[in-house]
């Protein structure tokens, strides 16, 4: 390829914006390398002989006249075994083996590895194979079986398949027609990996967080946004999801967020045991870290890299959850670069294609039948950090149009230290009905009614509390005071959940349902008591401590119910 060996010259450098000349064959979105440090950059515009490049690294020291080399391929991720349990940057370069301080040179040198993988074949030479067919498996770190598949776009007769045994990293393990297939493949991150069709069947995602599972559940393959101002506990909620949701694989992308948090996620996941496999939680997780002080443009690439990795595991038949914290920082990277190129700004300086970029990301979620015939899903949970907590800003409003659910975090709840601070008035899930139908078909016919009752009590309690602030609690009728009490009990005993408590950090579907039922029954009992003439004040001053602490102290709920009911009965 003659065009690839040709070198161009840097003409202008303005931070991550670089202009180059003399590369006539370079195409849009192709990756080129700048200068002796070989800083990766992407072609974002071509005007005559002038190329506009977006550099993914700090360009300090880059001069006019420095060489520009073509790579001949678009921005791609190197997919293969060894992803799980490790940490990468936004371009999927390993950080686990990189040095303490990250400079362009040190990152580039970290790419070479020479691991040997144990391959076990699972096909027979002579078979006619289509994309997605299983060739064999490779032993990776944890309990997740790494399946080597026929890559997209390749089909034909299997001419060669490696025997069981250690395979060096670069070697071919199979040959289909003329195509050699190795353990690794390059996939352009901005192009979705193909699948057969979107599934019509439904399966819920269990998150382990009661407020989500009981009130705003979503399905596998769905997408949700988590908008919240700073200090509303967004990151802790996302970390809880990454730890406890029932997916097979988690891709956690820290996009423009805090370094200490990434260290925390890493430390926590390494210590936790996955209750389903007995292995370490970290072994089902791929972490992409592009902290806020790392190069801005790699941040822009990181969300696409993450979803590409997710699709790769989806194709193996797994349910993958992508947790992106935070999509706002990614949008800001888009804005920063757009302003450097002089693009016409739309709302708040964001480029006009902001919503199509967001759609390109969220629409890659889905529960699908893969090319290999497996039912698998990519679920996307994206944090949104609205400036000033203003939910009318462009990133939030554009995101809301593309997601199935919104878990909105409320500053007032966080202010009173109610975590997770998921607002029950501002959140929603379009999947709630589908989850209700699924629960009903899986032995929980009361699920929808219980959710409806809880939502009603919460809404009524909020309305009455506002009223009580004007007229005083004492002037309200007894039943209404019991509704306010009910709202408080639901909030403290069911919806609040301690991320720190070893018992309460996650909650099974059955236990969550039982706890909600118990609280609703206690509320009903309180109503009955005031109906029978017990003073509302007396019920309000009753010590509900045992009920509120039940989620953390994990008593036998039947015993707890009897104790509270008996004590309440004594009021009458």
């Amino acid at each position: 390829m003659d065009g690839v060996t040709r070198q161009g010259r840097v003409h202008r450098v303005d931070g991550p914006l670089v202009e180059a000349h003399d590369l006539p064959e370079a195409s849009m979105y192709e990756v080129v390398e700048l200068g002796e440090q070989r800083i990766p950059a992407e072609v974002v515009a071509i005007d005559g002989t002038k190329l506009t490049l977006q550099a993914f690294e700090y360009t300090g020291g880059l001069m006019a006249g420095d060489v520009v080399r073509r790579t001949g391929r678009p921005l791609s991720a190197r997919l293969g075994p060894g992803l799980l349990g490790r940490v990468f940057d936004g371009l999927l370069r390993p950080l686990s083996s990189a040095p303490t301080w990250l400079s362009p040179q040190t990152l580039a040198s970290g790419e070479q590895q020479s691991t040997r993988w144990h391959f076990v074949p699972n096909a027979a030479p002579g078979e006619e194979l289509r994309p997605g067919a299983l060739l064999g498996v490779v032993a990776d770190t944890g309990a997740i079986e790494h399946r080597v598949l026929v890559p997209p776009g390749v089909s034909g007769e299997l001419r060669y398949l490696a025997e069981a045994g250690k395979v060096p990293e670069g070697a071919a393990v199979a040959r289909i027609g003329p195509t050699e297939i190795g353990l690794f493949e390059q996939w352009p991150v901005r192009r979705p990996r193909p699948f057969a069709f979107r599934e019509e069947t439904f399966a819920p995602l269990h998150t382990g967080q009661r407020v989500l599972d009981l009130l705003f559940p979503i399905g596998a393959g769905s997408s949700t946004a988590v908008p919240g101002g700073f200090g509303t506990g967004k990151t802790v909620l996302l970390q809880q999801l990454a730890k406890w949701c029932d997916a097979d694989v988690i891709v956690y992308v820290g996009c423009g967020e805090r370094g200490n948090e990434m260290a925390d996620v890493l430390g926590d996941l390494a210590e936790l045991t996955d209750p389903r496999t007995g292995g370490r939680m970290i072994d089902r997780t791929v972490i992409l870290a592009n902290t806020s002080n790392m190069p801005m443009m790699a941040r822009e690439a990181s969300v696409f890299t993450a979803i590409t990795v997710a699709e790769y595991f989806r194709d193996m038949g797994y349910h993958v959850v992508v947790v992106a914290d935070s999509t706002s920082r990614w949008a800001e990277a888009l804005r920063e670069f757009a302003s450097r190129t002089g693009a016409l700004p739309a709302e708040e300086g964001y480029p006009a294609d902001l919503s199509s970029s967001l759609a390109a990301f969220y629409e890659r979620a889905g529960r699908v039948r893969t090319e290999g015939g497996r039912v698998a899903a990519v679920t996307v949970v994206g944090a949104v950090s609205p400036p000033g907590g203003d939910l009318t800003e462009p990133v939030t409003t554009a995101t809301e149009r593309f997601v199935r659910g919104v878990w909105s975090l409320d500053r007032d709840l966080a202010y009173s230290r109610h975590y997770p601070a998921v607002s029950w008035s501002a959140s929603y899930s379009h999947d709630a009905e589908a989850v209700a139908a699924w629960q009903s078909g899986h032995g929980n016919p009361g699920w929808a009614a219980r959710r409806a009752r809880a939502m009603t009590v919460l809404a009524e309690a909020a309305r009455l509390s506002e009223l009580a602030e004007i007229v005083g609690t004492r002037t309200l009728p007894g039943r209404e005071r019991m509704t306010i009490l009910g709202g408080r009990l639901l909030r403290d005993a069911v919806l609040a959940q301690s991320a720190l408590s070893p018992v309460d950090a996650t909650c099974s579907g059955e236990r969550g349902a039982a706890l909600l039922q118990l609280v609703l029954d206690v509320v009903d009992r309180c109503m009955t008591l005031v109906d029978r003439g017990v003073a509302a004040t007396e019920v309000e001053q009753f010590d509900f401590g045992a009920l509120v602490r039940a989620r953390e102290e994990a008593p036998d709920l039947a015993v707890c119910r009897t104790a509270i009911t008996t004590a309440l009965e004594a009021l009458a």
Partner: protein
Amino acid sequence: MNDLEYGDVRSLEGSLLVVRGVRGAGWDESAVIRVDDGSERHGVVLEVADDLAVLQVLEGTAGMRPGGVRVRFSGSPFRVPLGRAWLGRTCDGRGEPLDGGPPILGTATAAVNGWPLNPVEREPPREPVLTGVSGIDALTTVVRGQKLPIFSVPGLPHLRLATQIAAQSSAAGDPFVVVFAAMGLPHADIDFVRTALDERAAAGELVMVLNSADDPVIERLLTPRIALTVAEQLAFVEGSHVLVVMSDMTSYCEAVREVAAARQEIPARRAYPGYLYSDLASLYERCGRIRGRPGSVTIMPVLTMPAGDITHPVPDLTGYITEGQIVLAEELNARGLYPPLDVLGSLSRLMRHGAGPGRTRDDHLEIAAQAVAALARARQAAELADLIGTGALSDTDRGYLAYATALEDSLLRQRPDDCRTFDDTLDRLWQAVSVLPRRELTMVSKALLASHLPAAGAR
């Protein structure tokens, strides 16, 4: 180092100097500019295009004219010397001594921008910095390696509080150093800080980098970077726990805006440039600890919220990057409470890692959580009382009002020269909480209540 000098000036505008005919100047390198009035100035390359180099002149372009300027490029970004020679010293926003002492010499130099710390190499923060200020130690504990800002408004004693913290903080007997970066502070404030931290300077535990309100704006951008570069070395090489106090970040951000405007960049919110978040992160993210190395860098930025607006870009972006915030309230200050800590608005996100069993005291986290939740309830009761009168409140709500008063009097109120021990602080907290009926204390375990709650007679 590039020995060639360039003197072909194409244009001069504001603090920008554009030279022509340049070969081999890289983006972001520093340069020395000799002016024919005899002065030597410093510049940073903002853009290169063919043979043009756009330089930002740190000391300003006053007196420069085409034909009267010689530019020499250094071949690397702006650097400062490193090492223990900094201890006890005071310098300006270019690293030049302000204390009458000799130039600061180090064993090595480093670029002030620093490199991002590999997230994998970070050690999660785990131990507290004890400030001796009860409200902070008890309810928003500062953790070594954390970034925790003070949000204030003009007229509040934030500088007094930051200085008190700088003077009193310690790390359980381990070597402790304070680096104070002043950005755009009035001279009177700088004098106040210097006097208040005199003892710390004399003990060789203080480095000051000072950029006063009338110093060059461009140097204001370098000031925190010099402070952090020095701090990183003292922490991660010399093994000290370093607290970097940076005041006032609002002036810093205005300097960023001023420079961006001079470069005719497209403005984003309130005319601040779109990269303000990344720029602030490049400072704040330099806190932390590193695996296998002693020492830590803790950052405490101080910022004044214009018109008290917490959604203004400066506090807003800061809040998104930092691990919590300490908020000061005008209303408390007006009532004569020092420090005027808005407990409910304040939060230390890392507190749960740096406090509690094995870090501070076994009862700390539970009683602190209870104290804050009870204060939230007390505020609701107070709002209700404003509408319907205290008399119409329930006994429970009146109990919460009494608790809020007790918390202010026994825990929060403190003299600016009073350094309280941690045990004293927590005992005061228990005293305040004991005002509440016991049935309301649902967040503290029975065992801790039994061992710590003061007996009814002592209340």
